[in-house]
């Protein structure tokens, strides 16, 4: 069995890391929000909507990062048969889906004042939308298969296949965007980021990552405990069955 494969050893490690991750999340979010809302200057062109970028850019980045985590845990589950990999994948998916939703919503709220329409078929926003469906597909596979072990492997296969397709989708959407979009006057990821914006953006990046680790630990712990509950219940059923049969 792999060193960390043993759940109890993993839970000890998680318990040690958790306070740091949670503390960091709170601290970074606090600092990031203050920097973003209070001190960051208005952009000469976008006015105060530039502040939405401090949410949109980290969320979009984390959406892709979490899908990479899904694909990595899928590969670990398929190739090295790592039993904890499936649990990590199942735990990470909703977090990634939430980040994707956040990126989409903030993208729309940012786009509306600029172009007067809520949805703009911008290359980046469209790719994030397709990524959102990939997350839904992954989570739907988990729900559709009752047996945990089979569901884990099926989701792992889908995550790896999805991951192979992400660059292809990204490339095709960019290609499609240049075909149909006259040189878009305003690129989605905003003007060149000048120094004053780096601080809030950096803090928010850190906050999102710390947040990801914190919530992931919660969700993995919940999943491991849920499986242990199911195993104990199954054992109880077989126990009473054997006792009644004897």
């Amino acid at each position, binding site marked *: 069995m792999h060193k960390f494969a043993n759940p109890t050893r993993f839970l000890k490690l998680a318990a040690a890391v958790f306070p740091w991750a949670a503390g960091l999340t709170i601290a970074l979010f606090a600092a990031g929000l203050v920097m973003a809302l209070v001190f960051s200057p208005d952009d000469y062109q976008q006015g105060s909507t530039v502040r939405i970028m401090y949410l949109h850019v980290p969320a979009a980045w984390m959406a892709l990062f979490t899908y990479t985590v899904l694909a990595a845990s899928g590969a670990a589950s398929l190739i090295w048969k790592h039993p904890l990999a499936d649990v990590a994948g199942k735990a990470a998916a909703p977090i990634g889906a939430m980040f994707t939703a956040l990126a989409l919503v903030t993208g729309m709220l940012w786009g509306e004042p600029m172009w007067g329409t809520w949805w703009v078929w911008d290359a980046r926003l469209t790719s994030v939308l397709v990524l959102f469906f990939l997350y839904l597909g992954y989570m739907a596979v988990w729900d559709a298969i009752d047996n*945990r072990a089979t569901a884990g492997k099926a989701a792992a296969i889908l995550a790896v296949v999805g991951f192979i397709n992400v660059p292809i989708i990204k490339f095709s959407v960019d290609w499609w965007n240049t075909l149909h979009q006259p040189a878009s006057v305003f690129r989605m990821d905003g003007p060149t980021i000048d120094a004053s914006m780096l601080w809030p953006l950096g803090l928010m990046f850190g906050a999102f990552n710390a947040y990801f680790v914190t919530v992931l630990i919660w969700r993995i712990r919940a999943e491991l405990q849920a499986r242990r509950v199911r195993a104990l219940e199954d054992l109880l059923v077989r126990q009473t069955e054997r006792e009644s049969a004897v």
Partner: protein
Amino acid sequence: MGPNPTVQTQDGFEARSLACRRAGRLVFEGLDFSLAPGQLLVLTGANGSGKSSLLRLAAGLLSPAGGALLRAGVDLAKDRDSHLADLHFVGHKNALKPTLSAAANLEFWARFLGDAGNVEQGLDAMGLGGLADLPAGELSAGQQRRLGLARLFLRPATLWLLDEPTVGLDQASRTRLADAMRRHLECGGMILAATHEDLGLSGGVLELERFAPRTALEEWL
């Protein structure tokens, strides 16, 4: 080519401390058996004790969670193809397409398994000669079961893996099957069968409950 006791495992089929995990759950462990040419081994045990799982392991559909299965002394994991080329597997379901005729169904399996094989011999062996052109969907359950069993006679194979072969068969078909199994054993064939019915054939019995997983709560992931 009667059964040759001295060459016990030479070209027999055996399991050594075999363990089976199906979709995450340990079904049995530490299972041993050895089957020599000319022998029948009947698997007994309650539902869920792993009869079908053991047959699927023997057919190479599942890979063992522990231990090994050996055919003629060679581990299946190392050389699966020669094992698969020399066995017949009849599961619960009959693998028939209802819109295809009985003969067409057998014809497909004969050609898919690599050689023309003789469909007529298969049909006659299970008394289905007259029904060759009927669509399989219109046959009765018993007739469909016999059509599934007819695959055993398409081409010679030493090892037969039968999962509840007599389900749905009338008495005449049951004796027909028992005779065919007896003939197969007499000319050095081996049979591993999961069944509750006494087929009137002498053979070993493997009680699967004896190999239920011992650890009270297996690795709970």
